[in-house]
């Protein structure tokens, strides 16, 4: 091999190397370009996407702030704005057996341990039931309502399977208070019973539910009424109780209670049995509390003019029936004495002289022949004796027998009797000043004025003395009626009622308290009549609610009784 051949071979190798190098560089450049192009494309896509997100983000606001803050169901408040029913996102306690994933146990600890730990947080928890739920491996509620503090304690247990989802909940912060007024919300989201049912449309409509609905109820008065009624009911071992505080000028219901109450936060079978409203739905023969109405009708008609006139107080015989007093009250009584001692015989004679047409007309004017006028859906129909009253019927209606009405009927009638004679329908809505609906006149102003004196005398000197609250000028009438049963009246079961108004020099509120089948106990000196059980409730209630309602006690002030006291010997002792 000569030098030339060698040179050619080296040259050829070099050329190949150069071309190889160039080829590699080209390939690398091409690949680099591809990579750069790929990255550039990705960057472009990202930039375009970002731009789109930026352009679109302003439109993804979803619901507006007002919509988001709109409650799921409108709020109900008392007349001062205190919430009585509200919907809010609350916590529930839910068992999710699949939260841990896999096929293992749904809980970290044993079901027994976790149930015991939950029992410590919720003392009223049914531990056995929860343990069974854990063992079943099925999802389910452990509790429907959990407080935030309790939810934190559940989280601290470290169990993933115990979830606390937030759910819209209808809650009644005052618990059982005013349950019959408020009602509750069923599982379908609609109101049941009470104002929840009445206001269902308003509370669910998005256009109106943002504005709370103020009821006429005053939460403080309602609380005091329920307190005192419950106390009176327990002391006399009564089956139930009912009470109302009514504004005599506007018909606003400041408080309305029917005991025992149910808990609208927890509707169960036991609660459903207590939903019957004794104040507006149950009709009773309310007994002697009707006597002032009869006397007012007689004064209005001019049958009773002279208050010193003596009326025969001996038993009244009508056909084969005899009307007696509960105990002998002497041979004769005047009208103030008759009311103070609650004489059936004198009332029967006054009603007889008045005549059935006129007494019946007054009862019709007072709305006793139809359901009570109030917004609540539970309104009982009275047992009305019809259009033609025989003589005996007229007499018995005169002292509150032979006709059954709700205690609300009585409260509205008393309001008309003491407010100057104008009847107003009761209402659960707050009435703004100047918007009081026009009522209808039932009694004359002068009759009303006279009835205030007479009612005050009953409380000051008669059967209503235990309702006296010094300084508040309470006036009222007791009533104790036997309940009807199979084959006539049951002597062992009575309904005791006290219907009152205060302050009698310028009445502003009517109170009716009623006890269903009270027993004679130590607290009631083994008596069952209203003077011993229903009247003391009013005596304790008025000093509690009077100052709240703007009635300041004044022991130096009272209604003028100077023309009646001289004709009543009992008042001069």
């Amino acid at each position, binding site marked *: 091999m000569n030098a030339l051949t060698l040179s050619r071979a080296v040259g050829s190798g070099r050329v190949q190397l150069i071309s190889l190098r160039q080829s590699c560089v080209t390939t690398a450049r091409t690949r680099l370009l591809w990579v750069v192009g790929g990255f550039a494309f990705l960057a472009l896509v990202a930039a375009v996407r970002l731009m789109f997100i930026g352009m679109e983000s302003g439109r993804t*606001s979803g619901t507006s702030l007002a919509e988001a803050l709109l409650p799921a169901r409108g709020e109900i408040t008392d007349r001062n704005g205190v919430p009585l029913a509200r919907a809010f996102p609350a916590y529930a306690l839910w068992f999710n057996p699949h939260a841990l994933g896999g096929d293992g146990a749904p809980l970290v600890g044993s079901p027994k341990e976790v149930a015991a730990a939950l029992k410590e947080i919720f003392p009223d928890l049914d531990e056995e039931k929860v343990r069974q739920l854990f063992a079943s491996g099925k999802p389910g509620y452990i509790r429907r309502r959990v407080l935030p503090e309790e939810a934190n304690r559940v989280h601290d247990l470290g169990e993933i399977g115990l979830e606390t989802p937030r759910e819209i909940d209808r809650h009644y912060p*005052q618990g*059982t208070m005013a349950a019959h007024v408020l009602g509750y919300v069923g599982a379908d989201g609609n109101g049941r019973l009470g104002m929840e049912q009445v206001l269902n449309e308003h509370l669910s409509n998005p256009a109106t539910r943002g504005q709370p609905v103020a009821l006429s109820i005053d939460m403080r008065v309602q609380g005091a009424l329920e307190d005192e009624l419950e106390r009176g009911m327990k002391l006399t071992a009564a089956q139930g109780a009912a009470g109302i505080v009514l504004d005599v000028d506007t018909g606003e219901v400041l408080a309305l209670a029917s005991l025992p109450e149910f808990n609208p936060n927890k509707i169960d079978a036991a609660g459903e049995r207590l939903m019957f409203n004794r104040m507006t739905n149950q009709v009773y023969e309310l007994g002697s509390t009707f006597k002032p109405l009869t006397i007012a009708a007689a004064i209005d008609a001019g049958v009773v003019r002279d208050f010193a006139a003596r009326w025969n107080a001996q038993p009244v015989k009508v056909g084969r029936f005899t009307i007696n007093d509960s105990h002998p009250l002497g041979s004769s009584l005047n009208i103030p004495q008759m009311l103070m001692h609650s004489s059936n015989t004198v009332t029967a004679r006054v009603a007889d002289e008045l005549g059935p047409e006129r007494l019946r007309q007054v009862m019709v004017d007072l709305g006793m022949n139809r359901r009570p006028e109030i917004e609540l859906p539970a309104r009982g129909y009275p047992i009305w004796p019809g259009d033609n009253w025989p003589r005996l019927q007229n007499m018995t209606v005169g002292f509150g027998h032979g006709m059954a009405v709700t205690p609300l009927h009585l409260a509205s009638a008393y309001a008309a009797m003491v407010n100057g004679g104008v009847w107003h329908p009761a209402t659960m809505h707050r009435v703004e000043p100047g918007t009081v609906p026009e009522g209808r006149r039932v009694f004359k102003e002068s009759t009303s004025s006279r009835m205030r004196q007479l009612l005050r005398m009953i409380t000051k000197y008669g059967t209503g003395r235990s309702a006296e609250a010094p300084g508040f000028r309470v006036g009222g009438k007791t009533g104790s009626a036997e309940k009807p049963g199979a084959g006539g009246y049951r002597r062992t079961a009575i309904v005791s009622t006290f219907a009152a108004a205060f302050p009698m020099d310028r009445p502003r509120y009517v109170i009716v308290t009623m006890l269903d089948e009270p027993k004679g106990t130590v607290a009631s000196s083994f008596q069952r009549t209203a003077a011993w059980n229903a009247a003391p409730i009013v005596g304790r209630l008025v000093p509690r609610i009077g100052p709240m309602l703007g009635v*300041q006690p004044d022991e130096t002030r009272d209604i003028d009784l100077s023309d009646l006291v001289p004709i009543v010997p009992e008042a001069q002792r």
Partner: protein
Amino acid sequence: MTMPRRLSALLTQPAGQTIILIVAGALFLALTLRVNAVRSEVHHLERQIVAVEHQRLLLETEFETRASQRQLSTWNEVEFGFQAPKGDQFVEGERQLASYGVPAGHGAPRQIRLAGGTPAPASQGALADLARVLDSEPVERGRLEFGRALAVLSADEGHADSERIAAARFDTARLAERLTAGTRGSTAIGTRLVRSGE
């Protein structure tokens, strides 16, 4: 070439128009992005407001539940035993309150009670009280009468600027009146001040 000419030249050329269009588009894009960013922040804040409002509702309801009427009543029965005040525990006004006054000690004279036509308004602090005293009717009347008397006196002396002097003295007198009206028994000080003003 001046700036307006350059600008008009730029606007007339297609390239210039394109540049301006691109710049305007870029600015529009930036502005849109900025607006949407702000909107997004507002939305975020709204969600926070809703969350806080829900939390507030929850806490308020919890508070209302814990402080329910029934609960407070039970506490009162168990712990405090407060009862509704009786009729004789209410006081209607200052007169009734004054009627409860008792002598300070054994043998001490009874407290003096003064009957006023209208109750004195509640004290609102020393300065406000002083202002009220100054604005009261008797002081105004007294001040005018005193000022008028001084003016007449000065006119009698025959000075040309009698009115001006009277006004100056009147101001001094008013100060004295103010001081004397505020506190009883300081008439002497007030008189001295009036004299020094003369």
